[in-house]
């Protein structure tokens, strides 16, 4: 049976400002009754492209056809009238509304009657096997509940072209499998499903065809059945790359940071870290793997003195005299004053690690402005440091006085990592350091980390890409729902083993991780 095209894109181009071209001349077709994956690296323009179909952005050039007719999609409302629905990566839900209110939001036909709507919602949930409480408020929901609301929202509107943006980023493998089954059912119903992802195994297990984008440009479409991981990777990154990260053997490794029974409760009273214990050693990279939001951020922030602990000890072993220093309940300033050289590259670069509106020099000052007795700032040293980082790490910038928000993602990260390394740390914590970076910048970061490792720094590396973790780290600690579910030797482990540990349930996760 010949499939009917649901959506066709012709020569779509989208620019942001004068310099950034997010999509360039993209041509793409998606058929009814199929699952199409849009595959591409971070920043390759996948989301922007889909946003143009769902009416968030409007293309600068080019045309969109729906069911063979040219469509002008100026707003999400137009998109709905073409029965297109998008589930965004960052949920578009109103926190203080209930699930049902969010689902009916923006629908204009028929009488407004929440009770009837709830009935319809329940019917949809039963049809596809969703588990949802329509009257529960969004702010008290878990991430996967929120995603369920998002999907029902789109189905409730009768969409038969569904776009999902990185739907599995926040899900456990079980939840992912459940979602995939639902998607397959929808495909068999004749719906057109488009899923944005950068995870190859998901592409291969779920989709019928794969369209690949690279740096905003359309590379091509292949049938899933006729392709394999290495071909897709090649299409994605342009040339065949072996993920081959240099890894040296740890030398003279000694304990540097001991964490014991760390427990941490968030503002809502939920336990985000539960009895976490581990040791970080000098001259090694300790990887931390886990589903996003399992307590990685809180763990690093607790060590950096940014989280209040309800229980546990953090002990730093001073490399000079072997003295033990207790870091619990110390502020970042106190930690610094104790002579503990702890550097931290947080996940949120422009919202935490750097100030986007300040220039590179002033961002260097963040770490050093308190130096000296004068009430005035000393800008000479930071300026020299900024110049050095720009030169050594090949930061592409018009100058040291350019606001960092104007730099590209990779250059922003170079500035941040450069600054943190410049403090010659003994402990270096990095969270998702290559997220959103191109391959070259990623390798710059890996090399910097390895350099530090060889200098004897204890590195804690929170990552999301298991391939990278396995290749780069010495040991990998797995965290799930705020607990350590296992520690493995990165040289001998497999991704599957780590994946299993990531989803290990609470009861059997009672293992400690002392190297």
């Amino acid at each position, binding site marked *: 049976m010949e499939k009917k095209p649901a959506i066709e894109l012709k020569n779509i181009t989208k620019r942001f*400002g004068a310099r950034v071209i997010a999509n360039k001349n993209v041509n793409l077709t998606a058929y009814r009754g199929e699952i199409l994956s849009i595959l591409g690296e971070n920043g390759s323009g996948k989301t922007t492209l889909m946003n143009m179909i769902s009416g968030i952005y409007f293309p600068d050039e080019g045309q969109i056809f729906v069911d063979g007719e040219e469509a002008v999609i100026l707003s999400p409302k137009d998109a709905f009238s073409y029965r297109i629905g998008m589930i965004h990566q960052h949920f578009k839900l109103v926190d203080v509304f209930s699930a049902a209110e969010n689902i009916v939001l923006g629908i204009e036909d028929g009488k407004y009657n929440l009770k009837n709507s709830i009935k319809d919602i329940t019917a949809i949930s039963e049809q596809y096997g969703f588990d949802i409480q329509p009257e529960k408020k969004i702010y008290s929901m878990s991430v996967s509940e929120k995603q369920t609301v998002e999907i029902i929202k789109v189905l409730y509107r009768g969409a038969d072209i569904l776009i999902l943006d990185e739907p599995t980023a926040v899900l456990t493998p079980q939840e992912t499998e459940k979602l995939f089954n639902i998607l397959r059912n929808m495909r068999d119903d004749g719906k057109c499903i488009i899923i944005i992802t950068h995870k190859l195994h998901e592409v291969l297990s779920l989709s019928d065809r794969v369209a690949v984008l690279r740096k905003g440009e359309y590379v091509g479409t292949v049938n899933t059945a006729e392709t394999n991981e290495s071909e897709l990777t090649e299409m994605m990154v342009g040339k065949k790359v072996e993920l081959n990260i240099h890894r040296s053997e740890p030398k003279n490794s000694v304990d540097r940071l001991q964490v014991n029974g760390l427990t941490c409760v968030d503002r809502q009273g939920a336990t985000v870290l539960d009895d976490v214990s581990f040791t970080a050693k000098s001259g090694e990279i300790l990887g931390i793997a886990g589903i996003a939001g399992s307590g990685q951020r809180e763990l690093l922030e607790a060590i950096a003195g940014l989280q209040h602990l309800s229980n546990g000890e953090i002990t730093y072993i001073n490399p000079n005299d072997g003295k033990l220093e207790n870091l619990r309940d110390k*502020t970042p300033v106190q930690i610094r004053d104790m002579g503990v050289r702890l550097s931290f590259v947080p996940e949120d670069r422009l919202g*935490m690690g750097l100030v*986007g509106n300040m220039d590179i020099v002033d961002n260097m000052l963040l*770490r050093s*402005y308190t130096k000296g007795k004068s*009430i*005035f700032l000393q800008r000479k040293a930071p300026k020299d440091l900024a110049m050095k980082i720009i030169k050594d790490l090949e930061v592409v910038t018009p100058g040291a006085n350019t606001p960092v928000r104007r730099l590209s993602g990779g250059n922003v990260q170079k500035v941040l990592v450069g600054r943190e390394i410049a403090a010659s740390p003994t402990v270096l914590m990095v969270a998702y350091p290559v997220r959103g970076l191109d391959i070259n910048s990623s390798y710059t970061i890996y090399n910097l980390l390895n350099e530090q490792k060889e200098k004897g720094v204890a590195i804690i590396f929170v990552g999301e890409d298991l391939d990278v973790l396995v290749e780069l780290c010495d040991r990998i600690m797995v965290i799930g729902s705020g607990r350590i579910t296992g520690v493995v030797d990165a040289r001998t482990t497999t991704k599957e083993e780590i994946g299993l540990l990531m989803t290990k349930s609470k009861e059997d996760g009672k293992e400690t991780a002392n190297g």
Partner: protein
Amino acid sequence: MAKVKHHREPLFHIVKRDDMVWWQAWLVRIATIVISVFLMGLLSKMLTEKSLLETFEIMYRGVFGRIETGSTVMLWKYLQEIAILLCLALALTPAFKMKFWNCGAEGQALIGGFASMICMIELGKTLSYPVLLAVIAVTSMLAGALWGLIPAVFKALFNTNETLFTLMMNYIATQIIAYYVYLKGGGSNIIQPVAEGNLPTIGGNRYLVNILVVALLTVFVYVYLKYSKHGYEISVVGESQNTARYIGINVKKVIIRTMAISGALCGVAGMLLVAGTDHSINTNTVGGQGFTAIMVSWLGQFNPFIMVFMTGLICFLRLGAGKVADTCMLNSAFADIVVGIVILCVVGCEFLIRYSIKFRHGKKEVKA
């Protein structure tokens, strides 16, 4: 059969830009000011049947007087107006830079002036002049700081909305003054000017001290924000509290300290008004300038030197339009209208600096 199908599509759409060079931005702003002043001229032409040139001449005379004949009375008055408004705007700037929307300059200045007044009345006869001046200065600043601290403490502790809090504090201050005026005015609702504790006159000029104090403050605020460690902390807290936390800035402390400074500077403005100008106080002593100062600080992009220019402009319009109203038998509220129009235009023109409008190129025709 080739049928040409036209589609509705947007004629233009708006995109953000951050590539405008500073001088282009200033060109836009100055052009807007010129245009809006011109508009104002047209408005008064409609109302008064005076020609544009005549209107502007009246405005000029209203601000500078007969300056060519060596008469500087009007000029000093103009500088005094600038000094007070600028002082308030300067006071607000550290708070604004921290993204703390202090809408309470009115009240903080009033309370500062209130402290001056109490000192002048209660201590004026007992303390020697230099000591009295010192006491006035210190108490005014403390009082203003206290008025700024109250909302700041709650902001720091509970994240209480500061815009609304500081607004309410204005009216509490007003009522305290109303109470005091009745108390001391003996039911007459007026406190007669007090002779003790007036700021000194230099060379017979009663405004010079005020102007000098504010000139010093301008430099102080500029240096404080740009070159001091405190100023740097304020910028970091304003840009991102998360970053501030990350590098170990005590955000609560910075909020409280900055608002104390902001309030104290408002207190200085109050002192300049009471001890330096009116030698008396009433509920209208600040006269809404605390609100105008918010606009000045924002229009001046939190840069003290640009703020000097903005206050110069606003005071020029206010005095000039006042004079036009006076000469042409219009109501004095004409000045408020003029200032309102010009500020609205300048606020609106920021759009042209931050966004650009893109027209779609290339006709789209589809053959079906």
